[in-house]
């Protein structure tokens, strides 16, 4: 049911750690241990190198595209403790901001919902999470949550923007009162939820279920239901789906998706949140869907019910 339509030869000289499509699927950003970030135009099955961005002094772990209303902006984070924000200006990509406030490798970057402005959350091995907000005129404001996770923070993921209370259109110029939240995962085996209150970030919830380092967290996009959903994965081989039914965000309950035989490194949601992708140490990416009765099933041949997307696996050489 799926086929490879394009193979992009990035010419990175070392391991790739992340690849991300932009909002429209027209550009691809990759980052590598070779310290570079590359951007390709992949429209119509092509692969044209647009930019080869140098600036990091160590392996680059992640890249993240900002919402197009802010222009063409890409963030990258690296072992060199830096977070760099790149911007396309007059057809060329340049460094527009560099944050060096972390004491250790920065492992994860994630842009907030565009409704909040241009805000980047960064998680680092120094245990802190920093929030970089663009305030205009080339200026960025930094808020830091120190000791968010002991030993280190491995992942950050924003909650979708939901306007609390009424859905009536606000008069122009007035910003709706958003409650900003994001989730983080760390080496303390915890998933934490952070909430902004009076301009300060506070730990709202501590989700305990993993028995080893949490490697990734992913907050599911909103499909209009009052429930919130977070996926987390860990070195303990488990993937949990956390759900919270009430709007106040107080009671989260975990459900075990699956126990894998190896470390699970990444979880991510499709844009309509109906499929969760899980990549693990077992060289496979599996895709999961939730059934009506709340059970999670690996989508098979649609015999399970009209799912239609298959599991994807590494191949043996020469196999088709």
């Amino acid at each position, binding site marked *: 049911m*799926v*086929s*490879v339509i*394009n193979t*992009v*030869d*990035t010419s990175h000289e*070392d*391991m*790739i*750690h992340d*690849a*991300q499509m932009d*909002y*429209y*699927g027209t550009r*691809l950003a*990759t980052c590598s*241990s070779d310290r570079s970030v590359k951007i390709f135009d*992949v429209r119509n099955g092509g692969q044209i190198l647009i930019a080869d961005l140098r600036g990091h002094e160590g*392996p680059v772990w992640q890249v993240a595209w900002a919402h197009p*209303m*802010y222009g063409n902006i890409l963030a990258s984070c690296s072992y060199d403790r830096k977070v760099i924000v790149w911007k396309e200006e007059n057809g060329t990509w340049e460094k527009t901001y560099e944050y060096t406030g972390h004491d250790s490798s920065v492992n994860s970057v994630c842009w907030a919902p565009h409704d909040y402005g241009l805000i980047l959350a960064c998680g680092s091995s120094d245990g802190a999470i920093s929030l970089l907000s663009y305030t205009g005129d080339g200026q960025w404001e930094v808020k830091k949550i120190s000791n968010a996770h002991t030993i280190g923070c491995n992942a950050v993921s924003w909650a979708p923007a939901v306007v609390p209370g009424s859905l009536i259109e606000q008069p*122009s*110029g007035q910003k709706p009162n958003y409650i900003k939240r994001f989730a983080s995962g760390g080496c303390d085996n915890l998933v934490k939820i952070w909430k902004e209150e009076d301009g300060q970030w506070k730990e709202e919830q501590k989700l305990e279920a993993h028995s080893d380092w949490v490697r990734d967290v992913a907050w599911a996009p*909103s*499909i*209009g239901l009052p429930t919130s959903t977070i996926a987390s994965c860990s070195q303990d081989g488990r993937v949990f789906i956390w759900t919270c039914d009430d709007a106040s965000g107080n009671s989260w309950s975990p459900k075990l998706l699956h126990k894998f035989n190896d*470390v699970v490194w990444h979880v*991510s*949601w499709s*844009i*309509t949140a*109906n499929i969760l*992708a899980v*990549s693990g*140490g077992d*060289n496979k990416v599996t895709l999961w869907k*939730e*059934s*009506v009765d709340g059970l999670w*099933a690996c*989508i*098979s*041949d649609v*015999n*399970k*019910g*009209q799912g*239609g997307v*298959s*599991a*994807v*696996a*590494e*191949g*043996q*050489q020469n*196999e*088709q």
Partner: protein
Amino acid sequence: MEELDAEPPVMVVPGADPSSRQLCFAWGPAEVLLCETRFDRTGRSPASRVFVVRKDQDIYIHTLRKLFNESHGIFIGLQRSEEELAGKSRKSHLVQVSKNYRSVIRACMEDMHQAVSILSAMELIWNLCEILFVEAAAAGPLLLRLLDWVRLHVCDVDNMVREVLSSEDPSKHELFWNLNNTQTLTEMELKWQHWHEECQRYLQDGTFASNSHTESICKILLGDEDAILEKKELMTTWYHFLVTRLLYSHPTVKPMELRFYAQSSMDLFLGGECSPEPLDTILMAAFEFEIHQVIKECSIALSNWWFVAHLTDLLDHCKLLQSHNLYFGSNMREFLLLEYASGLFSHHSLWQLGVDYFDHCPEYGRVYLELHIERIPLNTEQKALKVLRICEQRQMHEQVRSICKIMAMKALRNNRLGSALSWSIRAKDAAFATLISDRFLKDYCERGSFSDLDLIDNLGPSMLLSDRLTFLGKYREFHRLYGEKRFSEAARLLLMLMTAHIAPCSFWMTLLTDALPLLEQKEVIFSAEQTYELMRCLEDLTAGKSEKQKFQDDNVETMKVEMLRLALARNLARVIVKEGTLEGS
């Protein structure tokens, strides 16, 4: 609740080496990215490839584009037409809709040469579903329909039938074939029984004993399975065999009896040599009236959602789907339509069809549309306007704002200030409007003229979106008034811009400099009071500067200030005289 099946299908990424690599994964809006990596970040290996993966339906889109386009109209018509009809007329309407879908499939078959086999399979299945479910043909007409169905789809048309018609007792056969409306089922059955017994007698009498060929025909006519099976090679499929069998042994077969004959036909025909193919399983499920099974099997076998989405929708209109405890999603019809429509959004123009499908999904259609419509690349202004119109029609305010902001940013990056400004006004984005107004003003300072005058002149009430924008509008108005030689109005406006603090402080110098020509007109324009105000503004401006700034001011700045002071003083002198004189007289 369906049971969990065994193994998910596996897609193998070509050429990767599992011993040294793991797979990194990312979602794109329509596709999926995979790249080789090592998560524990050890080892050095130039793993430099990224794979872009798509669902096959998205690939099929190009071949089946005509099908998607044409069927869209039928779908919409069906959603809207329902309400007025009831009973028999409703049924015949639904049958007509089904036929329309099928004719679209056939039309595509004629046009396209690549996808013919899958299209003909789709038509075959759909046709059978139409007969059994939509039309719900009763015993009697059922067999006729099935005969037509087989004839239509099997290339090797019923040779048997041809043989029969050209054989010795055509009159007897005529009786059998003569199924007109006046005959009830019972009458037909009786006639057939009678004919059947006659044939039997002929066989037993040995009438055909001399000619083995004719004898075999007679046996076939009597529905002798073995005799029919002997002619297996003339029938291409087991369902051809089934219909033939029924024709000669149970022509008045009832719909619910079909399943038994179907199963045994398939067993006899395939004879245990080969296992049923997907198409066989689907048809079998249809003969067994297991509608949900049909849909499930079709979903697996066909690599596009078009078929199951449209067929299920039609069957739902026939009220044949109970609220089924679907494994994924709340409602089967909606689930399939959501999947189909989502796939359309990966196409540069078919996404517009997708919008209509989402509109007819009451539960999740709107939110799916919101999530997908944001991802449509806004390559041209035209496309952006199209997307906007769709969002505005559905009161999707967030999306409207978001799109306007994106277009404003794009225009700004390409230095199209006018376009950027109108987009940010449409987005009600005060901050951006301020930014662009500043750019306009900056341009004016550098070049001495405004661009996009039309736009600025016609801002109207949207001028109030941001202070800077208001200033821009008013400042331009000042220039207009000056150009029209309405000097006193211009003067009043200019002064007001400063005293009402509409103008930013950084711009005051420019404004005062603009006042110079007014001060040096032959005629006195500024009144005494106004002149005092101007002087105060100038003093505020210079006083406000720090020592450092004053030091940095170059000669031009200093000269400007001096010139202004002089002009203001001269004007004051003239106006005092003028006003004093008037008073005096």
